[in-house]
């Protein structure tokens, strides 16, 4: 077989990587999603030393290297601390369907929380997004106990 390496590409082998996992979510995610599903509340955990309310909730405060303590309800209102508008297609992990573009994405600091969490913003127009804007979580009617229970954060006027 003659090959002209200047013009022809060398062999490329298509490989599809498919592996299966069952992630152990742990007690904190378990309670977080159960609470969201049953009551619609968004819950964080408080570090007994630095008193930061951490989201997503977790067993350990990494800064203080101690176990986190009491559960604290946060939000559903919060403040956008960073935002973007996404112009490339993204398959929504919770629905398996592509999300219409452009859509907004942000880091939202829920009222009462230290950590800002990333989520989808209803507003996708970068002209209408700004740091410091107020938003509120919109939850689904039928909740399944996963992060898709929060549909998005809508812009609110206060």
């Amino acid at each position, binding site marked *: 077989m003659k090959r002209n390496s200047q013009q022809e590409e060398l062999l490329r*082998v298509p*490989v599809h*990587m498919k*592996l*299966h*996992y*069952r*992630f*152990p*979510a*742990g*007690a*904190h*995610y378990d309670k977080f999603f159960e609470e969201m599903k049953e009551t619609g509340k968004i819950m964080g955990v408080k570090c007994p030393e630095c008193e930061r309310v951490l989201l997503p909730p*977790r*067993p*350990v*405060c*990494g*800064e203080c*290297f101690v*176990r986190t303590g009491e559960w604290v309800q946060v939000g559903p209102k919060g403040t956008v601390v960073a935002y973007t508008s996404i112009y490339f297609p993204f398959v929504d992990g919770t629905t398996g369907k592509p999300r219409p573009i452009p859509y907004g994405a942000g880091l939202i600091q829920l009222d009462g929380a230290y950590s800002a969490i990333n989520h989808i913003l209803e507003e996708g127009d970068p002209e209408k997004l700004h740091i410091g804007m107020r938003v509120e979580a919109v939850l689904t009617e039928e909740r399944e106990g996963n992060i898709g229970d929060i549909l998005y954060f809508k812009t609110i006027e206060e």
Partner: protein
Amino acid sequence: MNPHVAVIGVSQTRFEADKGYEAIIETVFKVVREAMRDAGINRDDLDSIVTSSVDLWDGRTASNQMLTDVVGSIMKPESRVAGDGLGAVFQGMMAILAGASEITLVVSQCRGSMGDHYEISNWVFDPIYQQTLGLDYLSAGALQANHYMKQFGISQKECARVVVKNLRDAQNNPYAQVAREATVAEVMDSPMWAYPIKEMDAAPISDGACAIILASQEEGKALSKNPVWILGAGSCLDSHYLGDRDLTGGDALIRASEKAYAMAGIRDPLKELDVAEVSAAFSYQELLWTELMGFCGRGEGAKILQEGVTSMGGVLPVNPSGGMIAGNPVTVAGLTRLVEAVLQVRGEGEARQVRGARRALAHGTTGCCGQGQYVMIVGN
């Protein structure tokens, strides 16, 4: 001999088939805190951290990132070894020997229950050629098993005795996942997986974690009344391709162990070592590794086992913990061997203690069929 690095704290979890009752970070936090408690230090005392885990077993990329909070590495230097935990100890030792760190945490974790062990181990191999043909840790191990057993005339029953010994001794190990009285007949009757490896010849799939605290000579003496010293250490890699290696020759392990013995001033390991913890994922490997580390002549691993040399009460007990046959969270195996070796030298082996143990060997391996080999000698 003037050892430079001490092990001042150790901790291990119980190995279990499924730790789904807690998050990985929960398991790791417990084991790290316990190692710190054992060493009498707190997070502020740590200068650096080395973690060991493998992305495909963790189901995410750069999977050490999930451990930042629980290994105490916020605002500290952390490096990660994508392989066996005993290999990570070499990384930790280097930080101390380079003078960059006085106290270093080394931690390894794996959740065998999260994915499919052999499906994942298929991804160890070249995806263009080897992987497509179904090579994984089991089938590759079976190739090595036959290569070794044919060369020296070792029978399946002789390999089965390794399983019987290790499962029996594992009953003395509170951290073991599998431990019981078993018979050679039982091993022989267990389902054939890949000739000549049967179900009971293979280590189980396990969840678990291990942590140790390393210290410089100065800190080791200051923090610990009776520190355990790393007296010798050797590591060596063989070719990746199985077909490029002498599968039974084991040059990598010969070189790694000779290096460790030379550093520790050991001439006759059988006489001068008191106990050895060896990483063998399959029964035949314990025989092969003990030969390559010079505990006996080539082809004599089964013979010395039969004579009781490597059993509890023998000249050089191998795997009083039960070894990997008693529990096998993949990358954690080598670090577990070191933890066990340290406990032996401290005299804290409880029911599995080898009386008067002063020098212990820990062996780890990474990749397929012992491609990477690590040997450490610890002692008072």
